[in-house]
């Protein structure tokens, strides 16, 4: 127990540090992120450039700070949107049953059968690049796991005695959904959401890597990876630094999410009376 809370504290601290640094980027970044200095191309780390520079002599640290804003906000917003959409669809499926359930579940299956990245690419290619289309693409492709999870759990909860009891005493369906079903969904959905955040952060990176994220000279973590790739042998830090940041953020969020999910489940862990 003790060791786990140290890990959690550490994850929270690291994540807070990164988020704070990204938010304060305009004030704390050592150079303007787009400022080129061709004399300093692909420089190794030094006192002037802590993480070196890229092929146009731009400061890597400054670009990471600027890029985090885009990468993290798209990933976070997409997580929230997919979560809301998926849980709503899952609950409707489980409560309405019949053809509604059949239709929503089959749609879900179809989307799951298509490779997520290809669909996302398709949407971004059709609507153009940038914040909005990218968010839409990630939301459309990303809600399915939430819907599955929510549907299964809502089915299960609806079959429990207390839901029957609530119906018998005349509770409205919305009361049952908001007071009985949703609280029971909270912990697993939260766990799922943190895993998905890491996944989405990487997806944003991948789409930008393929040139479908932000447009130069603006930066984000994925496009930084892409831009640094041809020079990986001469300036490995250009790839390592944004890669490690993506990795660290995804890891920290997952760790925090697990902790939060455990806390959300806590009322259930009160020991039941010894004899049931």
């Amino acid at each position, binding site marked *: 127990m003790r060791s786990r809370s140290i890990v959690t504290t550490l994850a929270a601290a690291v994540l807070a540090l990164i988020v704070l640094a990204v938010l304060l980027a305009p004030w704390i970044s050592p150079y303007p992120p787009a400022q080129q200095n061709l004399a300093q191309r692909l420089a190794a780390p030094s006192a002037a450039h802590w993480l070196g520079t890229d092929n146009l002599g731009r400061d890597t640290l400054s670009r990471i700070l600027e890029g985090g804003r885009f990468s993290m906000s798209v990933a976070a917003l997409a997580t929230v949107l997919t979560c809301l959409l998926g849980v709503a669809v899952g609950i409707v499926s489980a409560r309405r049953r019949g053809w509604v359930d059949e239709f929503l579940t089959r749609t879900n299956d179809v989307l799951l059968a298509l490779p997520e990245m290809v669909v996302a690419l398709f949407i971004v290619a059709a609507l153009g690049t940038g914040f909005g289309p990218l968010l839409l693409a990630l939301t459309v492709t990303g809600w399915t796991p939430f819907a599955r999870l929510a549907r299964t759990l809502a089915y299960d909860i609806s079959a429990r005695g207390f839901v029957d009891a609530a119906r018998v005493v005349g*509770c409205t369906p919305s009361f049952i959904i908001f007071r009985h079903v949703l609280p029971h969904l909270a912990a697993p959905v939260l766990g799922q959401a943190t895993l998905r955040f890491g996944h989405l952060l990487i997806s944003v990176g991948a789409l930008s890597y393929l040139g479908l994220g932000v447009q130069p000279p603006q930066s984000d973590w994925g496009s930084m990876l892409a831009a640094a790739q041809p020079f990986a042998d001469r300036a490995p830090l250009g790839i390592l630094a944004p890669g490690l940041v993506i990795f660290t953020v995804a890891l920290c969020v997952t760790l925090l999410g697990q902790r939060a999910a455990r806390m959300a489940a806590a009322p259930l862990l009160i020991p039941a009376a010894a004899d049931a």
Partner: protein
Amino acid sequence: MSTPLVLEDLEVSLTRDDGGRQGRPLLSSVSLSVDPGEFVALVGSSGSGKTLTAMSCLRLLPPQLEITVGSIRLDGLDLVRATEPELNTVRGGRLGMLFQQPKRMFNPNRTIGHHLREPLRLHGGLRGPKARAKAVELLEEVGFSDPVRGFRAYPHQLSGGMAQRAMTALALAGQPEMLLADEPTSALDKVLERQVLQLLDRERRERGLGILYITHNLASVAAYADRVLVMNAGSIVEAGPAHELLIRPKTAYARDLLAAAQLAPESRRRPSSAERDVLVLDGVGKRFGPRRKPGGAALDDVSLSLRHGEILGVLGQSGSGKSTLAKAIVGLDAASAGTITRQLDGAEAQRPTAVQLVFQEPHSAFDPRMTLRASLRAPLLPRRGLTPAQREERIAAALAEVELDAGLLDKRPGQCSGGQLQRATIARALLLEPQVLICDEATSALDALTQRTILNLLLRLQRERNLSLIVISHDMDVVRYMCDRVAVLLEGRVVEVAETRDFFAAPRHPHSRSLVAASIPCRADGLWTMLDARNHAARAGLERQAAEG
């Protein structure tokens, strides 16, 4: 070969700092032993620590609990200090366990056969066709009429009784020397209960199986146990040979427990004089799934009427359609044929909530996340024109009516006992001023002491509020104690309706006759005669041995 199970001075406590409850021992200085071939009963009301004792022996305690003092020995192996690999050779092998709710203990995605193969492989080294043959043999032994089909069945395809028998087969598959049976029959009706207990008793006689039988059913204790241990609040308060302890209990607690087991045998109620019907069921039927085979109906042409102010008992074995009937009447699960007409009057009569249901398992009838206050407030929320203060007032009044302490309102179901929760369920129903109350096995999950207080509470409420009650049960004693009339349900059909007294005196339908007959040896008032008979048999056996030797 076999060795006794010995518990010495066992103490189990909450160890994690859980809001001030730290260190309070849940079990303290529990010492007991079970010899091979001995049938030892552990009795006590719910919450006394019986299950905890059994779980400690297998070291299957929830993570918040820890064995702090004492030892549990099985053949020189101290189970308290044993490592996990050592424990795994014991669990399900030399030390078998029979759980309370068999259906929950099976993996719903695996067949019964799959479950049985595991102990056979781990503890018997049997694989493939040999394991299969052995599993089928076990299923036949525990009373499956078609063991091959039982082998292939999934848990949901079994009735409660079948599942408990499958669980018994599972427990016996590891060739245990010692069996911990935790209320193995509390979910079963009398006929099945007797079958399961006889099966265990046969294993005891034939193989020298030692049995620690946890129960609150004293009649079965009288019938089978050699020794009895009485547990209260985490300690063993009295122990002794069954015939001595049950006839002359020394402690006040044991006396209370025994007194509670004896419901007054005949109904003290006189049939209601009112001729008005409040509920009329006409040809009610229910099928699950459109492609179900003919004869697979859960309810078939059920016609019944409930008179005003009457208590109607619905008797039936597990799987006879009792709960389906209850759900159809309150409107949880609409019937697929026939009509259910309510003929109520008064201000609340038009509301669907005028017919209320008291559930079988009080623990599942409440959302584990909500405080009781939130759960009790819920039924009043749709009522417009009630101020929060008025709501609290009505909740307090309902609680007082079921004799519950208002301090309980801020607890969650996990912190309450079954009896408290069952009172809370009744309070929740009363909040809606119902005219008809349906009790679906409302007391079968409770121990004898609590059961009696709940039944008396229901009787008092019925009198004071002039309610009409339907008491659904498999327990003959409950029906006889409570009801004016009895309806017998068999495979979804009503086969007999009669006044309670006539029914028990002269049941007409063959099924009713077998129910009444099966209830006699286990009935509380037959406890003493049965004890005598047993002592007699034991004495005869001893004399025979003496004569032969």
